[in-house]
């Protein structure tokens, strides 16, 4: 034997290990894939071996292959085998592989629950550690639910190594199983003050993650964090806390005030750049949240900006990058303080690092003003020319457009300049943003009336040079601008000077190479052009010329009629016919221009993107009302009276909803109007939008400088935007002179007029008047548009589920399920003595008590009060903390910097101390009380716990839970129930113990599911288990297709020593009125050190009639109807010598026989159940002094008598 083993082990030495595999792959560079597939075949062979070492080695190799991109999910089961190895070495390999490839979709993952639980409670801390690490990667909602309590227990493990891991993993558990957050939170909070800094850091980490998603729930922790911040020396923890404060301050401005001082101290004192940077960031967040009222407000900003400047000037690119990042945050609220560092930021635009350039670009966006826009854009245009990569250039392009178009073209004083910039941008090769430029051209031309003439002339030039733009196929993106050009030239053709030339340009054969949608626009706008030319010619009496142009159209249009693009073709043929008709009329010398032009009369106005959504529902239109009443389902209504009630409720609320909404909306609308009225930047969609500029004092008086368009352009169609910069300067200069003259005059006028700008803008800026009488048309909205602007939140946000109020006391139902297998000895972890319930605060206990009070309603009311009180208290605590002078901790900080007079600080400190002591006393009192409570309640809790225990195992969960509920239904007493299990012993031998439970299948009236728990009692490994049953005529085991009646069904798992697992088998049956017994055998292989043996275990599977029943709730009126119907058979039994309470009795019947209590009056109860084949079973249970009588009614008399017999047996055992 020993020799055989040695031989095996030596053989194994020649198996490839990980190193050999890696070496092999490196030696097979040419045919790597082939070599690896060969290796995978070998691995598959190795996995088939029984030796766990070989398996582990194979799994280890698979992990490596996974990294190379090979899917190894097929080995999931083998990985689990290796995970369950007893040796740490192998276990670690298994967990590593699992953490790399398991996920929620891995089906075998549910087999790991017990193994992981066992590892979690292992006496070896590294087993636990490895399990926790693995779990952190592949925890699923099921695992989270089943293991939440175990992990929570580990949070108070004696070893800090385990504690900190457990704390971190709780976050993953919260994400997957949000219900665990509230019960676990008190302990998590406790860990913030753990003696071990690592655990503390982990707790801070988790709470920060939680708070980041739902900050408002964590405000009450602010004092605790503040204490940590001022006491901790661990930079990592400090950074986390400071970041957390950054998330909290927007919710509580007072917190910000409190923070400023310690943060500025940290900024001054720390040498760690990372900490400094986060402090600056949080100070910025604080300053943003504080609208006003800080005396040293500007000092803090100055400090931040100053520190950031140091960062940006640093030679370390990382600091530079972060400095710019933080700067952009300040920019939003305090643009002025950043604007003074414009030089620095423009300098960053020249940086060789793209990330830094992009950051600098972001900053530019906020730094532009009317004054410097042209200058900045000019600089950017130079960068555009210089930029090598298309990505960066495209980024520049979008930034230029963003900067110029921001807040409704607020900073553009000269739109001619802007159009020129846009046209210049069309020279960019290979950009993807042609559509963006096109959209801007359209937008500006449509909304700025004054610019149309100029825009049209530029667009005409673009069309004329279309070949330059569209020539290169690579420049496809840019040809989008032709779309805009064609539309603008067509729509505003009255401004076109050389319409003929443009029309000809649009009719060039080259045009047909453009994309279809652009051609379509071409065709459509040709007609507009044609119409205006026609009108012009007719008016001036040039009939010849008019006919010529018609002829030109008829000649050229057919090239579009032949287009492959449907829309082009359709439009072209339609228009061709129209023009042929016009030609006929022209020959008859009928004036047609007026009619043709009438086709395009009227102006097209821009429509706001949200307009459609905001069309209000007309009065009297109820979108929720039925058009035709849906057919009522009268049959089912009889049986389910509750549903009717439910329906009604829904209908009520449906009517109510709109009323509330309208009120609310009206209120909001009013508030919004108010806001708009006070907002000088809001452009009202009044009929005369010109008002906006008329309001500006002085604009009317300034003579508009006409720009001389005869300035020769160097490239045809390519205007030079630079000229505008010079012109603009001149213009401004002139303007200023004139303004100075008029200043005195205007002063008086100004006073009375409403100012359009607020103090945010510098005076010089305000003075710059736009070059054109610009009239920015706002986008159209439907009348009475709903003013709501809220963006819908993403309903799929996984963090939304964690938006849980943590200050509310715990309810009974929220306790974490203590998931233990009822048939396995409870594996005690080192700390499991501390029961979960004890961890709950004092308040929940009160609640528990109340829960059991007879008058439930009253209890609930009280609970509410308690909750409110609690909340109030919490609120007060926070208020108290926030309102007091800086706490001692921060003053100690001040002391380290002996600048401030000590006497001044001392006084508030003392007061504070007193207050603190008082509070501490209070807390102590509370603590005592709660400990008393604990003792009193201890008994009950234990019972509770046992009840919880039962709720293990997912599969049986369902029936059990229902039972407990129904028991409560009938329970009026405050009596605890003894633990019950529906699992009965099936068979047992020294190796294996089988227990089973039978449940009816709701979906199938002729099937039941038998759940069998196999427990390995030996120290050997059990494998190849196979279960076989001798079918009867009535009852048959469901076997996979193709297998004969004599084949057994393999149990889908193996059992390591001491492990139990559950398998399910489905049976089909014909009649259910009689109980059945089936003989069966379990065969399995026992494998241990001595080798393996084949074993058998016979059993008898008993299908009681009760197992065909499904617990079905029934309402008393339906129950009464059922009894009245009269088609039920009746039978009754009486059992003497019953000593247990009536409540227990009912619970037993509910639990073991799957009944539910319909009604209970004193010692009399009616019960109901339903078989899988639809038999109704009604019971009337009466308890005498020492006896119980049961009257039963059922559709089938045999079933009834069998059921009653079974019940008799159960009761006689009592």
């Amino acid at each position: 034997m020993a020799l055989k083993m040695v031989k095996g082990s030596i053989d194994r030495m020649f198996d490839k290990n990980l190193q050999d595999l890696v070496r092999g792959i490196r030696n097979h560079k040419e045919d790597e894939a082939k070599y690896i597939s060969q290796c995978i075949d070998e691995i598959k062979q190795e996995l088939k071996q029984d030796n766990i070492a070989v398996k582990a080695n194979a799994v280890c190799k698979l992990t490596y292959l996974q990294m190379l991109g090979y899917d190894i999910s097929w080995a999931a089961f083998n990985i689990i085998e290796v995970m369950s190895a007893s040796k740490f070495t192998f276990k670690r390999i298994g967990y590593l592989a699992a953490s790399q490839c398991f996920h929620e979709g891995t089906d075998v993952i549910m087999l790991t629950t017990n193994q992981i639980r066992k590892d979690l409670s292992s006496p070896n801390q590294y087993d636990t550690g490895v399990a926790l690490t693995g779990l952190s990667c592949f925890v699923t909602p099921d695992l989270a639910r089943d293991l939440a309590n175990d992990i929570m227990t580990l949070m108070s493990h004696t070893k800090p190594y385990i504690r900190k891991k457990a704390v971190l993993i709780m976050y993953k558990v919260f994400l997957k199983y949000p219900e665990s957050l509230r019960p676990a939170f008190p302990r998590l909070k406790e860990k913030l003050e753990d003696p071990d800094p690592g655990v503390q850091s982990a707790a801070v980490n988790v709470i920060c993650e939680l708070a980041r998603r739902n900050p408002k729930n964590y405000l009450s922790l602010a004092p605790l964090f503040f204490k940590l911040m001022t006491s901790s020396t661990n930079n990592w923890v400090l950074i986390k806390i400071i970041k957390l404060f950054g998330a909290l301050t927007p919710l509580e401005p007072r917190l910000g005030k409190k923070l400023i001082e310690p943060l500025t101290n940290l900024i001054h004192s720390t040498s760690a750049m990372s900490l400094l940077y986060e402090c600056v960031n949080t100070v910025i967040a604080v300053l943003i949240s504080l609208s006003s009222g800080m005396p040293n407000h500007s000092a803090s900003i100055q400090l931040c900006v100053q520190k950031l400047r140091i960062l940006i000037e640093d030679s370390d690119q990382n600091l530079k990058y972060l400095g710019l990042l933080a700067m952009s945050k300040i920019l939003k609220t305090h643009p002025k303080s950043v604007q003074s560092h414009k030089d620095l930021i423009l300098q960053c635009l020249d940086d060789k690092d793209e990330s830094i350039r992009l950051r600098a670009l972001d900053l530019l966006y906020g730094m532009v003003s009317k004054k410097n826009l042209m200058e900045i854009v000019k600089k950017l245009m130079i960068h555009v020319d210089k930029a090598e990569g298309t990505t960066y250039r495209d980024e520049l392009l979008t930034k230029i457009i963003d900067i110029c178009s921001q807040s409704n073209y607020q900073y553009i004083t000269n739109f001619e300049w802007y159009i020129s910039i846009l046209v210049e941008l069309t020279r960019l090769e290979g950009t993807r943003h042609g559509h963006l430029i096109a959209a801007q051209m359209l937008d500006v031309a449509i909304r700025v009336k004054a610019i149309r003439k100029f825009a049209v002339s530029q667009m005409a030039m673009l069309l004329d040079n279309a070949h330059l733009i569209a020539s290169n196929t690579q420049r496809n993106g840019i040809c989008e601008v032709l779309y805009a050009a064609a539309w603008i030239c067509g729509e505003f053709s009255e401004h076109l000077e050389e319409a003929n030339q443009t029309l000809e340009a649009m009719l060039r054969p080259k045009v047909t190479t453009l994309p279809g949608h652009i051609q379509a626009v071409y065709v459509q706008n040709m007609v507009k052009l044609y119409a205006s030319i026609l009108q012009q010619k007719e008016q001036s009496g040039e009939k010849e010329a008019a006919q010529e142009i018609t002829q030109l159209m008829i000649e050229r249009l057919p090239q579009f009629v032949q287009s492959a693009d449907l829309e082009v073709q359709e439009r072209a043929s339609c228009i061709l016919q129209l023009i042929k008709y016009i030609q006929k009329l022209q020959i008859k010398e009928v004036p047609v221009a007026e009619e043709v032009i009438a086709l395009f009369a009227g102006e097209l106005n821009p429509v706001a993107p949200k307009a459609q959504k905001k069309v209000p529902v007309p009065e009297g239109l109820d979108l929720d009302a039925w058009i035709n009443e849906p057919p009522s389902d009268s049959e089912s209504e009889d049986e389910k009276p509750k549903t009717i009630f439910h329906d009604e409720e829904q209908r009520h609320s449906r009517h109510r909803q709109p009323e509330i909404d309208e009120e609310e909306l009206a209120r909001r609308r009013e508030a919004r109007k108010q806001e708009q009225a006070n907002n000088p930047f809001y452009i009202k969609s009044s009929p005369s939008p010109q008002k906006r500029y008329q309001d500006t004092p002085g604009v009317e008086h300034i003579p508009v400088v006409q720009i001389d368009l005869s300035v020769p352009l160097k490239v045809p169609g390519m205007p030079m935007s630079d000229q505008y910069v010079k012109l603009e300067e001149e213009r401004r200069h002139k303007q200023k002179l004139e303004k100075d003259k008029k200043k005195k005059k205007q002063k008086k006028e100004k006073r009375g007029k409403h100012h359009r700008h607020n103090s945010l803008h510098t005076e010089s800026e305000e003075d710059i008047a736009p070059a054109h009488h610009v009239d920015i048309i706002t986008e159209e909205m439907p009348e009475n548009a709903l003013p709501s602007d809220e963006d819908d939140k993403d309903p799929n946000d996984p963090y939304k589920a964690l938006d849980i109020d943590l200050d509310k006391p715990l309810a009974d139902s929220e306790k974490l399920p203590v998931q233990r297998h009822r048939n396995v000895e409870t594996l005690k972890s080192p700390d499991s003595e501390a029961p979960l319930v004890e961890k709950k605060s004092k308040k929940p206990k009160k609640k528990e008590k109340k829960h059991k009070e007879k008058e439930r309603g009253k209890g609930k009311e009280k609970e509410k009060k308690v909750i409110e009180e609690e909340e109030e208290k919490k609120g007060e605590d926070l208020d108290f903390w926030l309102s007091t002078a800086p706490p001692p901790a921060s003053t100690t900080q001040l002391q380290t910097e002996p600048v401030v007079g000590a006497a001044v600080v001392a006084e508030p400190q003392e007061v504070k101390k007193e207050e603190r002591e008082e509070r501490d006393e209070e807390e102590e009192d509370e603590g005592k009380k709660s400990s008393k409570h604990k003792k009193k309640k201890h008994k009950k809790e234990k019972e509770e716990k046992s009840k919880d225990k039962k709720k293990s195992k997912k599969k049986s969960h369902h029936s059990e839970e229902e039972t407990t509920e129904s028991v409560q239904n009938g329970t009026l007493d405050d009596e605890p129930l003894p633990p019950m299990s529906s699992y009965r012993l099936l068979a047992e031998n020294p190796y294996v113990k089988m227990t089973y439970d039978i449940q009816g299948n709701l979906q199938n009236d002729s099937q039941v599911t038998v759940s069998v728990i196999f427990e390995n009692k030996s120290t050997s490994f059990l494998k190849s288990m196979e279960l076989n049953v001798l079918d009867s005529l009535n009852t048959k085991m469901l076997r996979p297709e193709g297998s004969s009646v004599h084949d057994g069904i393999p149990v889908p798992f193996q059992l390591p020593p001491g492990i139990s697992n559950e398998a399910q088998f489905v049976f089909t049956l014909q009649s259910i009125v009689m109980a059945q017994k089936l003989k069966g055998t379990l065969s399995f292989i026992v494998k241990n050190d001595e080798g393996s043996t084949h074993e058998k275990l016979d059993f008898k599977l008993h299908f009681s009639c009760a197992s065909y029943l499904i617990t079905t709730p029934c309402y008393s009126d339906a129950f009464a109807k059922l009894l009245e119907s009269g088609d039920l058979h009746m039978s009754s039994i009486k059992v003497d010598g019953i000593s247990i309470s009536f409540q227990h009795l009912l619970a037993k019947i509910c639990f073991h026989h799957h009944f539910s209590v319909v009604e209970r009056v004193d010692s009399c109860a009616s019960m109901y159940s339903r078989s899988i084949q639809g038999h109704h079973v009604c019971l009337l249970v009466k308890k005498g002094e020492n006896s119980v009588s049961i009257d039963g009614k059922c559709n089938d008399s045999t079933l009834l008598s069998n059921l009653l017999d079974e019940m008799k047996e159960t009761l006689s055992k009592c």
Partner: protein
Amino acid sequence: MINAILVFNNHGKPRLVRFYQHLAEEVQQQIIRETFHLVLKRDDHICNFLECGSLFGGSDYKLIYRHYATLYFVFCVDSSESELGILDLIQVFVETLDKCFENVCELDLIFHMDKVHHILQEVVIGGMVLETNMNEIVAQVEAQSKLEKAEQGIAGPAVTVPSRWQGGLSAAPSRAVSAVKNINLPEIPRNINIGDINIKVPNLSQFM
């Protein structure tokens, strides 16, 4: 939260891949490739942060990387992590590797991917930073190697394996070895005379 930790060499060959959210293997490889191309373009004197949230499917994500000799260490993190803090963490991780492998080089990572993972697991778990103190990390890693050795040690005093073979043999026999518990391995050649085993025995001495 840390979303992913990638280590690859100057040619984009992955040396350590650790995603903290599940992604299919092809997607993982795609991300590694794209990340590699992104960082490859950047020379060593520019900043170590990269915005490429789209790569990982979230705008919040940022790549923070460091380049050491032939290896890139890339961490993908969201906004709750401090950028400079993560840079320090990478340094801590690399220094820890250096301590555990004694002058770490790419070859160590190539041949001991499992060990690198185990070290990483003492620094970051489930995307959250577990420990930043290098001494603590090294202590835990060593304690676990000791435990591993102890488990091998059952095989008897003779099976002392040169450290470079550790990884290979650590995956080796448990039950079988325990069966030879009391046999002094060097003597095996003398004791065993069965044909084919005899042939393989000379190879054994290599391991001694």
